[in-house]
């Protein structure tokens, strides 16, 4: 690991709100999308000439389309409840990373152009004209929000900064100032079918290789089917599952579970990606377009069920938005929810005794679990509220003997983002990612010291990639992160049913 050109925060014994460090992160800006990246999504290639007008018009349009935006821009009383809740603030001390201050970057402009008080008395209510410096702040600080919604949990009015930052990014795209990472990836999804730009033939090769690996490991012919018409289940993993560590061990886990349960399944080369980065840029049309791939794949392959792999925001889009964006799914088997999470499948099979797990297979590690923000606060698993916390833990506990939760203030609905969500998982934002991981790293250090925890299990492709990258900055080994289904994969008993 190269020495970073920024200071890595020290892990203290307790997580305390930092001293304010104004503009500490003002220089943090992701690379801008090129003309080609913008064009592929129908956005202007560069800052349009009358950008102020276009931005205000776009804000006006969004105010008419999203009740959340209108209500949240009006309703804040500046009570301060959210000010110490954002991991980016806790890690950087930059006051503009306090959720309310981040919202105010947009709210100040909303007030100036859309409210009588802001038009008449701008100074009094903190309203300001939209100019170059505001635009600069928007681009910087709305790309320092991972849309994890931790602030919304604590807000007395449920104000969700994710709604504000998504709207701001939508405005930025509309005036021609897109973010390279998200927009380039969305272009790849449209052109090739997945975020990584992995074409069908390469996918076929990868899957054949995995079949060989599993055969060599276990002696069992576990298939990784691609484009098989008439399969029961269409499985849609995040594309990182196809090759990155530890993601791929999760994919192997899903395959073993479905194999052992005797459920026929298939992947799709057309929809070989669960992620939907359009959520990050707040664009409904893009999000719908990406979601419709899943519908088309399910129709073309004549499957009965759709199952999503381990990916946080993908599960949010699937659980909360898929029915809206690409429904109704009346052509699927209505005995099952649409869609299902792979953890729901595995949990059900374990509960019914349909698969058997040998916990001792994971005795070499002590595990904790990182609740992904999008799974925790934006979706559900199972049929009861909070199932998203219970099901993964029960699956992990069925797979290993040594499990210890982190501090209750840092898990469940209060979980901290890994620091790389919301379209920020790019190396041009490395300082932000490292600093934003501070609260999670602090909680991990605590269970490491108190319980000898060696590994952190994650249920999201972004969390896994982010941890792999930032763990070493805090003195943890990069391979201390494991997939939940990697633990299942280690423990599952293949072959004849007992």
């Amino acid at each position, binding site marked *: 690991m190269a020495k970073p050109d920024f200071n890595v925060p020290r892990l203290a014994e307790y997580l305390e709100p930092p001293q304010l460090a104004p503009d500490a992160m003002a220089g943090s800006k992701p690379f801008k999308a090129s003309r080609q990246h913008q064009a592929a999504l129908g956005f202007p290639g560069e800052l349009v000439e009358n950008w102020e007008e276009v931005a205000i018009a776009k804000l006006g349009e969004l105010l008419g*389309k999203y009740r959340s935006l209108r209500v949240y821009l009006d309703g804040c009383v500046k009570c*301060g409840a959210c000010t110490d809740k954002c991991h980016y603030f806790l890690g950087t001390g930059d006051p503009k990373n306090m959720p309310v201050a981040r919202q105010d970057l947009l709210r100040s402009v909303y007030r100036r152009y859309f409210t009588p008080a802001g038009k008449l008395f701008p100074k009094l209510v903190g309203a300001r004209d939209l100019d170059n410096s505001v635009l600069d702040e928007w681009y910087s600080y709305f790309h320092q929000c991972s849309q994890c919604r931790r602030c919304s949990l604590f*807000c*007395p009015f449920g104000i969700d900064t994710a709604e504000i930052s998504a709207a701001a990014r939508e405005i930025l795209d509309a005036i021609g100032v897109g973010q390279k990472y998200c927009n380039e990836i969305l272009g790849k999804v449209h052109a090739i079918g997945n975020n990584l730009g992995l074409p069908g033939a390469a996918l076929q090769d990868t899957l054949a290789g995995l079949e060989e690996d599993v055969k060599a490991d276990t002696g069992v012919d576990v298939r990784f089917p691609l484009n098989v018409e008439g399969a029961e289940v269409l499985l849609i993993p995040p594309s990182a599952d196809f090759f990155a560590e530890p993601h791929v061990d999760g994919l192997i886990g899903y395959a073993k579970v479905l194999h052992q349960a005797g459920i026929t399944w298939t992947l799709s080369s057309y929809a070989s990606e669960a992620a939907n980065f359009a959520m990050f840029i707040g664009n409904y049309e893009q999000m719908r377009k990406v979601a419709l791939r899943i519908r088309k794949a399910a129709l073309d392959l004549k499957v009965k069920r759709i199952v999503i792999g381990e990916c946080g925001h993908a599960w949010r889009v699937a659980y909360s938005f898929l029915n*809206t964006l690409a429904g109704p799914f009346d052509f699927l088997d209505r005995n099952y929810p649409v869609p299902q999470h792979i953890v729901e499948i595995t949990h059900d099979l374990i509960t019914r005794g349909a698969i058997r797990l040998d916990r001792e297979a994971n005795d070499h590690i002590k595990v904790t679990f990182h609740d992904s923000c999008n799974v925790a606060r934006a979706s559900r698993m199972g049929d009861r509220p909070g199932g998203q916390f219970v099901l993964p833990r029960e699956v992990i506990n069925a797979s290993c003997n040594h499990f210890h939760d982190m501090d209750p203030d840092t898990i469940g609905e209060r979980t901290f983002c890994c620091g790389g969500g919301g379209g920020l998982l790019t190396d041009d934002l490395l300082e932000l990612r490292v600093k934003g991981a501070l609260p999670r790293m602090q909680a991990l250090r605590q269970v490491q010291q108190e319980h000898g925890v060696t590994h952190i299990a994650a249920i999201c492709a972004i969390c896994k990639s982010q941890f792999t990258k930032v763990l070493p900055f805090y003195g943890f080994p990069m391979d201390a992160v494991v997939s939940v289904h990697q633990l299942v994969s280690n423990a599952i008993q293949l072959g004849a049913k007992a």
Partner: protein
Amino acid sequence: MQTVPLLTVICALMLYAGAAVFLLGLGHKIVWYARTPAPLKIPTMPAPTNGIGVALRMAREAALFESLFKSNKWAWLFSALFHLGLLLEVLRHLRYFVQPLWGWVVLIQPAGLYGGFAMVVGLLGLLARRLLVARVYYVTQPSDYLMILLLLGIAASGLSVTYLDHADIVSFKEFILGVLYFDWQPLPANPLLVIHLVLASVLMAVFPFSKLLHAPAVFFSPTRNQVDNARERRHLAPWAARLEAGLNK
């Protein structure tokens, strides 16, 4: 015919103006909130899976400030004190508007007296938090201080006419009923009472244009008022349906 004193005319007109701006402005905002669609399911999870659960969640949020309690105990304490005090005072003030008096309004009069003090303590606590906590100080605008001062002024002037310079509340009630029924009666000439009325009118008038909109906003907040049933029921906004049908945006 008895002439109505100029002060009474001014105060009555001011109350009409304040109430009109309040009702029309707030009504306009509420209609606007209600008409703007929420195209996506975004309840902060875990969320209730049925309407009754959501009603209970909203009730806890509006009456107990559940999320604020989760977040910060000091902010919750001062905020709860202020709002509870305000509620008691508003209920207690019904005695000026209702004739004959309802029994329960009579019953709460003693408790209502404490309301004013609770408001002052709560407001001073919130003000101290704004000034002393660096994070809150950073996000505070001049209008945030003014709002606290306005409310403190209302509470202080109200307490003064109760404890320091007793207003003639019998004539005051006649004045209020007169305003209500457009049959103006003289306002007792008590400067503190006039100040109290002026500030209350200002509060009503700024309500629809200020952060006081948090009162209706909490009920329209999609993260709090949506049911967690996205997989069971398809949620589609009108503009999204038009987009789907290939029509305009």
